[in-house]
């Protein structure tokens, strides 16, 4: 905007909060002496209706094109006052706030003179910046009312169905030929012992028959690009490729079972199974029609050992050479193991069960009760320690094919258990596709290899990229209900922008002056959000370009540009420089 700045300054008493310390009248008076200030007033509560009304009237009366309120922290009321001037048709970015409460009156309450002096300085700084403020265009991006759900396990299915029911189109991509994921491979789900198929089948059928859902099976994402509201991807299903467009993404790529190869003699003897393998064995559609028999002998097992924390809570000393330890707890194995124990008891009541655990973490709804019930089956609990892992050896010709020896920290004894079957309660590891997806979507991966949420406490479903949301075990180990909750939640997150059809992206973004840009790409390296890309100009010159929708406006690129080609809107070098100069050299900031 070329027109001469006309600034209005409104100094707030905030009751006695500011006025009690700072001489507000004096500050307001002083403001009139500053360049381009055409009106300056004080008021008791500028945020009150009366105060706001005063600002509006003055905008009309004095044709203000900049407004400064000197009151509380902008983090408190900047949005309030921005709305006020917007109602008067001014752009919200021509507002500036000086913080006279949190940064002056409340922290210098014993020094009124200094406080007043500081208040004047802050107002002068605000004016210096305000003179250079400019209206910024509002950036709205349209959001396509379609979502991509990656992964067709219970999480992906749940998310897809909700979004579709909400009225948006969903592209559901599953890499295997079937929906249901890992849950479909289970025998029963704890602690209620429901048949997973009973829960899954109706859901899958709804999905297949849903008018809003396009299912892709045995499919993969060949390519994906874009930003919130405007993504494009190429899906490869069997042989044919299809290009689709969508606005939001839900990542539900799930988990893999930890591969215990090289640990606990796994793979060395047929009767040493992982929990997943045991589930297969116990299923009615398993190789033995659900008959629980030892793979080697085809006999009903008389004695079974269940070992927990296989692939969880590891450290360098507990994993074989060359294997990366998983430090985290896999969250479901303990209850899973106890549930398995109950199921074994149900199938062969005479079998003796030995549970080897470290801490028993039956933390979910009804889990502890299940554990209590299990203990009443007279099974043996053995608490091993991570410095003495249980040892398994196969005993040729003995009555029992296997023998487990372990230290029991509760009795302080070393125990030896002859068993027919050993079941390893293996933990969860991220799906193989995780790192690939992460780099494709510019989302981060946390130390444990699972996708990293935006905030571990309050934003567990958002990724660092707007429009990309996390569901289920892709974000970290969890059981079925927790996965479902997460995926329903992720669906809600995805529905929000699609329901509104548009999202406003902050206008305070970085812009690049292509004439200055030498195409060195330093800025691209400095951008955490991959918001800067190369663009080919004619005569083959490469220049950096900011993708507005991706830019979060931190300005880091600006300070890293060796050619000073990047301007950080609303926090321009000149604007900050003016503030500093005004702060330090009063006469420079005055008329």
């Amino acid at each position, binding site marked *: 905007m070329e027109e001469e700045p006309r600034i209005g300054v409104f100094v707030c008493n905030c009751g006695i909060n500011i006025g009690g310390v700072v001489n507000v009248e004096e500050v307001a008076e002083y403001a009139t002496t500053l360049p381009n200030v055409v009106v300056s007033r004080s008021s008791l509560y500028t945020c009150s209706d009366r105060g706001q009304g005063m600002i509006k009237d003055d905008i009309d009366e004095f044709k203000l094109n900049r407004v400064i309120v000197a009151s509380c922290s902008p983090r408190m009321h900047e949005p309030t006052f921005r709305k006020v001037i917007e109602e008067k048709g001014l752009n919200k970015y021509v507002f500036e706030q000086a913080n006279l409460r949190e940064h002056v009156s409340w922290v210098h309450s014993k020094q009124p003179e200094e406080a007043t002096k500081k208040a004047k300085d802050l107002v002068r700084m605000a004016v210096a910046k305000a003179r250079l403020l400019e209206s910024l265009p509002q950036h709205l991006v349209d959001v396509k009312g379609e979502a991509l759900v990656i992964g067709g396990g219970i999480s992906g299915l749940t998310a897809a169905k909700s979004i579709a029911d909400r009225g948006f189109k969903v592209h559901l991509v599953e890499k295997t*030929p*079937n*929906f249901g994921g890992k849950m479909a491979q289970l025998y029963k789900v704890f602690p209620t012992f429901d048949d997973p198929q009973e829960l899954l*089948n109706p859901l899958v059928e709804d999905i297949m028959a849903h008018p809003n859902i396009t299912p*892709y099976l*045995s499919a993969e994402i060949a390519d994906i690009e874009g930003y919130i509201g405007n993504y494009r991807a190429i899906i490869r299903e069997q042989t044919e490729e299809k290009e689709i467009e969508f606005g939001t993404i839900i990542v539900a790529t799930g988990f893999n079972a930890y591969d215990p190869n090289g640990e606990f003699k796994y793979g060395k003897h047929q009767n040493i199974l992982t929990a997943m393998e045991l589930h297969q064995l116990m299923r009615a559609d398993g190789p033995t*029609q659900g*008959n629980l028999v030892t793979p080697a002998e*085809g006999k009903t097992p008389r004695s079974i050992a269940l070992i927990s924390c296989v692939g969880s809570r590891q450290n360098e000393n507990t994993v074989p050479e060359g294997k990366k330890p998983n430090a985290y707890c896999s969250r479901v194995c303990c209850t899973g193991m106890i549930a398995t124990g109950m199921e074994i008891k149900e199938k062969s009541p005479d079998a003796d069960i030995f549970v080897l655990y470290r801490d028993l973490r039956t933390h979910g709804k009804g889990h502890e009760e299940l554990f209590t019930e299990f203990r009443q089956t007279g099974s043996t609990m053995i608490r091993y320690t991570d410095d003495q892992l249980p040892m398994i050896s196969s005993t040729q010709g003995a009555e029992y094919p296997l023998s487990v020896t372990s230290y029991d920290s509760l009795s302080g004894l070393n125990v030896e258990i002859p068993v027919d079957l050993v079941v390893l309660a293996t933990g969860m590891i991220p799906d193989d596709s995780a790192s690939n997806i992460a780099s494709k979507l510019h989302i981060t991966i946390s130390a444990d290899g699972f996708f990293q949420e935006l905030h571990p406490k309050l934003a567990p479903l958002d990724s660092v990229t707007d429009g990309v949301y996390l569901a289920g075990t892709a974000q970290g180990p969890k059981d079925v209900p927790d996965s479902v909750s997460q995926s329903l939640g992720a669906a809600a997150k995805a529905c929000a922008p699609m329901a509104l059809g548009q999202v406003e992206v902050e206008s305070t973004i970085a812009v690049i002056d292509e004439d200055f840009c030498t195409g060195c790409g330093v800025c691209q390296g400095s951008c955490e959000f991959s918001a800067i890309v190369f663009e080919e100009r004619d005569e083959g010159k490469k220049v950096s370009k900011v993708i507005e929708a991706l830019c979060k406006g931190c300005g880091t690129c600006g300070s890293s540009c060796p050619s000073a080609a990047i301007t950080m809107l609303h926090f321009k070098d000149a604007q900050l420089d003016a503030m500093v100069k005004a702060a330090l050299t009063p006469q420079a900031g005055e008329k």
Partner: protein
Amino acid sequence: MKDFALYLGCLTPTRVPSYEVALRKTSEKMGLRFIEMENTTCCSPMSILSLDYFTTLSIGARNLAIVEEMGLDTMVTPCNGCFEGLKKAAAILRNYPETLEQVNEILATVDKEYKGTVEVRHLSKVYYDEVGVDKIKELMVKPFDSLRIGIRPGCHLMKPTAITGIDYSERYVFLDDLIKATGAESVYYKHRFRCCGGLLRNVSEEVTEGMLRERLIELKKGDIDCAVTVCPLCFLQYDLGQKLVERKFKEKYNIPILIYSELLGLGMGLSAEELGLKTHRVKLDSVLEKIS
């Protein structure tokens, strides 16, 4: 094309003769050579598996041994039940040598030995792999374009996939291709993979008919001209069972049901009479009209 040992099982010849007719007549046209098996017994019945593991396996092993004696390596059966039972037995006997040993001890009492070489295949899969979609297209002389078909693969053809080795997906089954090959359209409808309740018929009329009714309702919703299966038991349910359900619940469905081999037969120009389709309880007129 190599020869296959044909294991009909009990149900097909005794209760679904039209299936046997169709499979024999069509196989000639497709150049499939089936050799009869003699002195076979009940397959390797899952109904006994839950009672005694080794007995079941031994029965299966005996049938499989016969194939070896014939100097063949592949057994083909038109029945889903036989298919799963024998396929499973073959798999277990191949994967668990100790088990095979114990089974052979039992077989020795009837002077038989099973070496574990036989592969068990389902008729429909033989159509798909050996004959192939293209060949079938060629053989079709009747226009099925207008025909909307809901497939009914039957559980024991598909599951457990690990053992049956049949790639099955909610989205797509090889049967869809086989249907398309005839020129007809294969329609997705709910419950296409759900149990028909057939095996429960001897256990509880209540349950089996309740289940079947749900299936029929979903089929009806799919608005299809006829259902097509490859399983004699499914067929019995949807054909005979349909009548019983209609009577019991005082409802009318009139969902014609065909066996895939019969569909092929019709497509190849064989007449309903030749195929003995008159043995069906549910009238096929609507379908026959559409394709004539």
